[in-house]
């Protein structure tokens, strides 16, 4: 390993021997990983008091094995349920879940809305690349209408979820969406989510140059980032736009930021009351 040029965030927060990202060249997951490490660094948080949980899929390899902390790499779609057990059992620990659109919008969809409803103090970062990358490019519940994939060779007949609206309706305390182009806003949202005393959800629209890129004819990750910048519309501006005007756009920003007692705290209060 080239020791002279190791990124300070890796030196400080990465597991030794795990510096090399397991993702494809140009994948957005590494950008999201870096943003999380930066958020932790800026808040000066103790990595020994954070548990990172993830499920199955490319984005679930963001903390596993890179982050030098307690990491729980779980089964497909279930990371939020595992994380709920961790958070309730030791409320002193900050719990962060990395998940993907297949992981938490399809197989684990119920766990996502239930965790939001419970308002359990977990920060969920959902990396949405709009396709099943790890398994080879099959259609996802986030794939836009009409897009051809390995399993929609004649175009996607279904419509994608608006995950932020879904999670907002389910009761989350913090909801935001950014793209991998908007790294500074993402770091700022992650910092809010890490400190939030309720369920926090950040959707990151991310590039998959290898699978999704092949199907939509854009294999250059940089070009995808430029497109993200171009088609992103701030939440405030989007409010005054029609459905037609918003077609093909990504609405970015903070959608929800409220204070409501989280489940782990509520449970601790109950235990204190019962064990006076």
């Amino acid at each position, binding site marked *: 390993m080239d020791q002279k040029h190791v990124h300070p965030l890796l030196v400080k927060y990465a*597991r*030794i*021997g*795990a510096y090399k990202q397991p993702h494809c060249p140009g994948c957005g997951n590494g950008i999201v990983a870096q943003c999380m490490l930066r958020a932790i660094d800026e808040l000066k948080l103790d*990595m*020994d*008091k954070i*548990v990172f*949980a993830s499920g199955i899929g490319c984005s679930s390899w963001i903390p*596993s*094995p890179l982050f*030098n*902390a*307690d*990491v*729980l*790499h*779980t*089964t497909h779609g*279930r990371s*939020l*349920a*595992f*994380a*709920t*057990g*961790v*958070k*309730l*059992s*030791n409320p*002193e*620990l900050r719990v962060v879940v990395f998940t993907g659109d297949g992981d938490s919008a399809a197989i684990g969809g*119920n*766990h996502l809305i*239930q965790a939001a409803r419970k308002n359990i103090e977990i920060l969920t970062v959902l990396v949405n690349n709009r396709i099943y990358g790890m398994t080879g490019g099959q259609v996802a519940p986030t794939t836009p209408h009409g897009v051809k994939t390995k399993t929609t060779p004649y175009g996607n007949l279904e419509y994608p979820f608006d995950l932020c609206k879904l999670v907002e309706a389910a009761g989350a305390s913090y909801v935001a969406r950014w793209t991998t182009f908007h790294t500074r806003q993402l770091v700022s949202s992650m910092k809010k989510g890490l400190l939030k005393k309720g369920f926090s959800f950040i959707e990151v629209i991310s590039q998959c140059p290898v699978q999704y890129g092949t199907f939509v004819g854009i294999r250059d990750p940089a070009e995808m980032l430029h497109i993200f910048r171009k088609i992103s519309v701030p939440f405030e501006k989007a409010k005054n736009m029609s459905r037609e005007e918003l077609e093909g756009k990504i609405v970015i920003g903070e959608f929800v930021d409220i204070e409501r007692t989280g489940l782990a705290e509520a*449970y601790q209060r*109950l*235990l204190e009351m*019962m*064990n006076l």
Partner: protein
Amino acid sequence: MSSGANKIIEPGTHFLMGNEACALGAVVAGCKFFAFYPITPANEIAEYMSVLLPKVKGIYIQMEDEISSIASVIGASWAGRKAMTATSGPGFTLMQENIGYAVATETPCVIVDVQRCGPSTGTPPLPMQGDVYQAKYGSHSEYPIIALAPSSVKEMFTLTIESFNLAEKYRTPVILLSDALVGHLMETFEIPDLSQIEIVERKKPDKETSDAKYFLDEDVAPMPVFGCGYKAHVTGSTHDEKGLRNVEDPVYVDKVVRALHRKIEKHKENIVKVETKFLDDAEIALLTYGSVARTAIHVVNQARKTGIKVGIIRLITLWPFPDVQVQSAARKTGRIVVMENNLGQVVNKVSEVAAKYADVKFLPPRIIGSLHEPEYVINFLKEVY
């Protein structure tokens, strides 16, 4: 974390339902996290746990399904708590993937399966012993499991404690394979002074070292619970002794499969328990477990009065299978009659290990899902005798 059970549980005679005794046993064992999804006939365990746990600083949570129940139990275990879930057939099926995860990640936890009649939705309140193989082979691939079968309300208490002890000692999920009969049965039983009950705590690492080996030790590696600076890496992917994923080298598949298997196999002698009665002069051995053993004990007493020299071997441990003990009973008697409330599950395993020493016969109840009538069993024994 002290169990705190002595604050809320009095020693002495109790008159309780099996499911309630299970909840008490869990609290005595130090259970501090219980997750559940409603299902008949396991509900009373959860209802009682929701009352008891907050009194001992434990957490009760009702999850959105059985998948998330077992998932949160595994998370709680890694966060340092003794943890349990309870369910019945359909829910047990949903839990299988994460039970495999618990085995692979060496996560101590207890799963109570109060078996009911199937297949599918079946008849929820009726007992059946249909999940014996699901307990062992329900999750995919190759893995060991520990499963215990309680026969009484008292054993719903003692074997729940034993399940926790085995889970914590061997860092493995343990299945308490009860059924609707034992779960809903009401009996009196004695709770001894709690200080007399052996409670096992998991082994934790001595110091924080970056090269510490926390997995794949056949003598059970210490468990690097979260929040203590161990920087644990826990994954259901094929991994090395440090827990780090290795899906490149097929040797690690072999390592994981064998190490998990040896961890249980090597300690089988300390895990396996059976109960025998009247075997010394017996010419037939009745082999039973769980609720069916209750009829068997009654039958043996009756049959002996009529001159049939019959004894009993009751399996308390179903998995790992008590092959040595079954073979010994086979050698002694030369004839084994296996009684189960199904169309033949344990009998296959008995035949596999004991057929060369004894004639193995199977006796299901006349009506599956109901008890064997004593008369029906005695008539069968007379024919065999």
